[in-house]
């Protein structure tokens, strides 16, 4: 008698799954995720020599201060927004010498490749849920730094 009860439970589950699980998954799948990439220059000078460079937003400044970086001022050189469907990748030009290739792997994961002067420098795969930031950076001349910040915005 007990065995019949278990089987009935399983069958009930199976029916629910067949009716709900598949379509629910299809509906739950987001069409595309939106990302934002920023190219930033870090310096100890309070002004950038390029008047087009704007200081970064207070939110970004605050987050950069949390990281072990030594610079006191950060200027936004370029900002790009783009959408990626699951398993879609795009190459984004951040400057003449810096490109990134971002692939949305689904489940909040991304693959990011950084290109310097056309050459691939690093490729990184990691979770990047909304609210997290990935910062790629390196030293630049005269004790300054370049940074690429990637975040998911939708």
């Amino acid at each position: 008698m007990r065995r019949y009860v278990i089987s009935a439970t399983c069958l009930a589950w199976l029916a629910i799954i067949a009716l709900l699980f598949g379509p629910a998954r299809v509906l739950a799948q987001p069409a595309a995720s939106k990302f934002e990439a920023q190219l930033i220059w870090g310096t100890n000078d309070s002004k950038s020599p390029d008047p087009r460079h704007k200081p970064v937003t207070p939110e970004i400044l605050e987050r950069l201060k949390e990281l072990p970086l030594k610079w006191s001022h950060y200027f936004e050189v370029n900002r790009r927004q783009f959408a990626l469907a699951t398993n879609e990748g795009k190459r984004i030009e951040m400057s003449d010498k810096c490109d990134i290739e971002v692939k949305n792997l689904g489940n909040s994961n991304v693959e990011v490749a950084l290109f310097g002067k056309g050459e691939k420098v690093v490729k990184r795969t990691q979770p990047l849920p909304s609210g997290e930031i990935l910062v790629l950076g390196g030293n630049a001349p005269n004790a300054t730094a370049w940074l690429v910040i990637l975040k998911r915005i939708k």
Partner: protein
Amino acid sequence: MTDKNHSSADDAALVRAAQRGDMTAFEELVVRHRDKIYARAYTMMRNEEEAIDLSQEAWVKGWQRLKQFQGESSFGTWMTRIVINLCLDALRKQKRQRTESIEEINEESGGVERQMPIVTVNPTAGLERSELRQRIDRALSQLSYEHRTVLVLHEFEEMEYKQIAKTMNCSIGTVMSRLFYARRKLAALLADLKKQDK
């Protein structure tokens, strides 16, 4: 008070227990390493209150990140790296709020350490341990945080030049010149203290 059973366990066993959520095991780790962690914070910050706060913050972070500790280094080393990073952050924030120190101006203006006369007599020879500590303490206070930090990472943390450069986000050349300046300045300061004695 820590669990009596824990006092005979080694660090690795305590870490495993703490990773499972046993806070008394973690407390035992704090008891064992707290002086070392505090000393590192004090050497870097030169302020007792800040050193206590930062060392305690390091322990809280240590607990939060304990699951990431895989035993690549000893637990003590892992904890000192956490406190060093916290101190570096705090020092950078402080630096942003104050003007450059005379030390930094000296360094920038042409490497005074190159012209310093060599201290031929060991200025610490024959000193009692407590007296030696006091003098070094005073001399360290007169170095800029960058010079002191390089010295701490090299002499106490036994990091190689390359590791220091990574930790401080600067080039190996900068590490070498900062370390050289810090050592020469320290020798000169210790020699001055010896002269004042006479």
